[in-house]
């Protein structure tokens, strides 16, 4: 993830607990999505951030994954997501996520 926000996320989860928490991502590159999802599920894969070795177990979805996107208000989808959905290769970007959720 090399997410510089890892520390804040860790604090938020320590306070609020991880039950029923999911992450919803918006990145447009499969590598970014993969790194974020792995960090939130099993800990920072780069072994360098505040979530190194901390498996929060939080599943990540991409906002454009159909099982998520189908739940949004259609007018909102049109306004907020229609362009990004056409601009990025959604299948390629979301591809890493299912197997990481199943880890």
């Amino acid at each position, binding site marked *: 993830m090399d*997410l510089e926000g890892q520390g804040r996320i860790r604090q938020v989860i320590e306070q609020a607990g991880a039950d029923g928490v999911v992450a*919803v991502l918006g990145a447009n590159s499969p590598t970014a999505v993969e790194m974020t999802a792995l960090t939130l599920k099993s800990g920072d894969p780069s072994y360098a951030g505040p979530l190194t070795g901390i498996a929060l177990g939080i599943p990540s979805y991409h906002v454009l994954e159909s099982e998520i996107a189908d739940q949004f208000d259609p007018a909102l989808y049109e306004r907020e997501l229609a362009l*990004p959905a056409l601009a990025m290769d959604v299948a390629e970007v979301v591809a890493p996520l299912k197997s990481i959720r199943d880890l």
Partner: protein
Amino acid sequence: MIDLKGKRVLVIGERDGVNGPAIEACVKSAGAEILYAETLCFV
């Protein structure tokens, strides 16, 4: 199949993909609660 209703969500948007505010609006419309939200800028 995940049901977003009632879930607590960490929103991690990206400036040139789908940003934080966009994800927040959509996720709220599905009945989820926002626990944390940010937009990443990789450059």
